């Protein structure tokens, strides 16, 4: 799978020469930097250099004003040329600051850059122990000795180029998935876009208006959905689910199953079949706010426009087969499995609206409480294509409600249901919907019961203010219960206004629950197929919350949108764009460079316990059918977590091996130090 192309940088040394160096005794050059007064002001650099001279294998020990300057670097280079130094130790600043400078210098002289050992005597010693010079001297000596000990056994680490497959897979065709797929395709990368549902567009297509500008989401997203569906480089698969994923960064093999639509692609979307279908069911896409047939199209603008047959509920009367003018309906279609090779994977599986059924005091989904709905249902009711003609009507009797109460933080900021996090978008959409209702029905009282109103960002505070001005009532308090008068069927929301400390009973014709965003159904199996970690809330975990929020725990697998955590549309789009750029980089370049700083396994010691695999976060250890582990050198992230779990010490990270670390530990523990 990996293609070895030798070292990336051409070095002056031929192979024979480098072998010669290996067989040689270690010859170590130690260079102590004054760094002006930064180091020399506290540490007696001359004494440290003298001490270094007494250490075994040290052939040269010098001190110089500025090691990072041109003459300083030249000193290092000259020692390699003149004295045959094959390992260098520079005692100066941190590895991040000038470690690379010296590593590059010795690489130019034909040594492997991993033969350089940087000792930090400035940040770790002189700068922090300015008042205790004796102790600082002693410490500097010990640190240099530790560095020399470590350098003695340093091994060469190869840098390899690994070719990447120029194709990408995007899982989920919601707004984030579409954005990511489109961005990558525009960079010239073939994209396989797979979607679990029969249509693309995700949650955004269901919304009525988007905050804060009250724009029509269907109008915003349709250029993108059409663009993706017609893009020559994007292959779109709906009704498809991932079955298996193998490989690592740059070279994945993905198997996915495509469920049949039972309607062929020549469907003209005329709707004859649905018209004649005798089976009627509540539409899932419409959150049960309208009915659909057993052969249906989720919504008028759905892409792909091809109808789909719901096999589970179909009574096989064959009416649709007979009425179809183009004979597109075919009950004999079979599930198809497809295997593709890709270089990067973007997971944009989105979110699910929290199901408030488990919060018993709110009686959601219970008999007699039909007028308790969620925000997404309200969005469907308000949308232009709804059954109610965009009117807000009580599901129980179809009347326009006189009192609407919205309850915030349903399923979020709630330890009892296990969701500590704030979804972050509920305040915004509740305010938006409250304003829309108030504008439509000025006589209707709209109340929002909140814990805290959180409207950060440009234009959101203005939205909040405008809702207050228009007369939306805000009550600070989490409602304890929704009670129903058994005779009149009237609902009341029990809440304490915590600002005025008054217990209230709010009359409610319609109660709208602002339900949280939770990880989508089926994320567990998908996560384990991808070998990526999940956060404690159940979302897929990002590599680093600040510095890399789009990379997952595994190299080459990126996260886009709400699968990483609750996000609104603009955040999802930005997140997806970032994921697309990161995922595309190695594919556009054509290869990845990888330092082979990986563990090696001593198979004589290995007892096939498989513990190394259990701790390996990037899933870089493969175990074959005989139980023998092997390291996937591309996937490995060089953390070394596999080392301490190995009961026999068979697996050892190169340059961090137990015996290499031991040498350093002896010096810093005082075991080898010479005390004055």
């Amino acid at each position, binding site marked *: 799978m990996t293609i070895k192309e030798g070292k990336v940088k051409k070095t002056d040394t031929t192979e024979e020469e480098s072998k010669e160096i290996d067989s040689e005794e270690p010859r170590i050059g130690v260079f102590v930097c004054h760094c002006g007064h930064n180091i020399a002001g506290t540490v007696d650099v001359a004494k440290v250099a003298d001490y270094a001279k007494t250490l075994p294998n040290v052939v040269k020990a010098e001190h110089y004003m500025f090691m990072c300057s041109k003459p300083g670097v030249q000193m290092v280079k000259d020692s390699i040329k003149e004295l045959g130094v094959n390992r260098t130790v520079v005692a100066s600043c*941190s*590895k*991040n600051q000038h470690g690379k400078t010296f590593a590059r210098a010795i690489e130019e002289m034909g040594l492997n850059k991993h033969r350089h050992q940087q000792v*930090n005597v*400035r*940040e*770790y*010693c002189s*700068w*922090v*122990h*300015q*008042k*205790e010079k004796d*102790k*600082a001297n*002693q*410490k500097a000596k*010990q*640190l240099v000795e*530790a560095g020399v000990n470590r350098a003695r056994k340093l091994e060469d680490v190869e840098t390899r180029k690994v070719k990447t497959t120029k194709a990408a897979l995007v899982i989920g065709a919601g707004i984030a998935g579409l954005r990511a797929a489109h961005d990558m395709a525009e960079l010239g990368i073939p994209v396989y876009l797979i979607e679990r549902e029969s249509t693309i567009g995700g949650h955004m297509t269901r919304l009525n208006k988007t905050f804060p500008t009250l724009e029509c989401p269907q109008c915003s997203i349709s250029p993108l959905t059409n663009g993706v569906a017609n893009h020559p480089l994007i292959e779109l698969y709906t009704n498809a689910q991932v079955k298996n994923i193998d490989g690592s960064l740059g070279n994945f093999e993905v198997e996915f199953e495509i469920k049949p639509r039972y309607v062929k692609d020549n469907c003209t979307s005329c709707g004859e079949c649905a018209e004649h279908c005798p089976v009627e069911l509540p539409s899932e896409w419409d959150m049960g706010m309208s009915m659909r047939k057993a052969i249906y199209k989720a919504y008028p603008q759905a892409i792909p426009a091809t109808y789909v047959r719901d096999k589970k509920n179909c009574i096989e009367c064959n009416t649709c087969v007979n009425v179809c003018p183009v004979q597109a309906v075919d009950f004999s279609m079979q599930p198809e499995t497809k295997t593709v090779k890709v270089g990067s994977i973007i997971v944009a599986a989105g979110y699910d609206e929290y199901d408030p059924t488990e919060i018993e005091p709110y009686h959601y989904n219970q008999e007699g409480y039909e007028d308790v709905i969620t925000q997404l249902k309200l969005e469907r009711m308000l949308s232009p294509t709804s059954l109610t003609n965009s009117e807000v009507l009580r599901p129980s009797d179809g009347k326009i409600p006189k009192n609407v109460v919205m309850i915030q933080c349903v399923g979020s900021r709630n330890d009892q249901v296990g969701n500590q996090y704030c979804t972050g978008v509920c305040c915004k959409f509740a305010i938006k919907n409250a304003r829309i209702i108030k504008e439509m029905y000025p006589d209707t009282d709209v109340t929002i019961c909140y814990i805290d109103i959180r409207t950060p960002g440009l234009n959101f505070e203005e939205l909040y203010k405008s809702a207050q001005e228009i007369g939306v009532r805000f009550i600070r308090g989490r409602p304890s219960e929704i009670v129903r008068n058994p005779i009149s069927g009237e609902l009341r929301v029990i809440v304490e206004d915590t600002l005025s400390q008054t217990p209230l009973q709010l009359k409610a014709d319609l109660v709208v629950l602002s339900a949280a965003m939770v990880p989508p159904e089926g994320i567990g199996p998908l996560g384990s197929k991808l070998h990526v*970690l999940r956060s404690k809330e159940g979302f897929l*975990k990002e*590599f*680093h*919350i600040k510095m890399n929020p789009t990379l997952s*725990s595994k190299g080459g697998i990126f996260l886009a949108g709400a699968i990483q955590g609750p996000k609104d549309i603009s955040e999802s789009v930005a997140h997806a764009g970032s994921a697309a750029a990161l995922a595309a980089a190695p594919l556009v370049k054509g290869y990845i460079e990888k330092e082979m700083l990986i563990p090696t396994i001593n198979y004589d010691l290995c007892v096939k316990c498989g513990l190394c695999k259990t*701790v390996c*976060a*990037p899933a870089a250890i493969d175990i074959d059918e005989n139980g023998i582990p092997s390291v996937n050198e591309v996937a490995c*992230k*060089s*953390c*070394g*977590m596999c*080392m*301490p*779990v190995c009961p026999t*010490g068979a697996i050892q*990270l190169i340059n*961090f091996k*137990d015996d290499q*670390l*031991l040498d*350093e*530990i*002896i010096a*810093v*523990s*005082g*075991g*080898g130090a010479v005390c004055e």
Partner: protein
Amino acid sequence: MSDCEVIDEEIKEKIQNVVVFMCNECGQGSANTAGVARMAYEPAIRIVRVQCTGQIGPIQIMDALSNGADAVACVGCCIGACHFFNGNLLSMHRIKLMKKLFKELGYSDQFINQYTSRAAEGETAVGDFEDIVDRLTTAIKEEGTIKDEC
């Protein structure tokens, strides 16, 4: 335990080598930040760079203690911020078990500790270092297990 009075400073004076394994990410980062800000701490602290604290096992810890280290500590990234995912948690778990073992063997469990730090804040590293020395001092004073020569 000895009867004579021991002053903290005297004990601190005797602490010479405290081996601190710091991870390549937040550990090293915070120590560097502390250095740049010239935040003084005990010179007994000896920092060893490792890839991740999850890499440190009982072997390394016992190597350090048997070679004369007064105490050993691992400093990793904050919980949930490990750059390799959960190395800090693994290490924390391992050190918890080792502490238990130390107690059962009759030693103070303050010889080994796990800490976290933030690369952006040198105070976190310095706080960790101070805590290591303080805990060790208290342990020596109360239990008199090492360098008990008054």
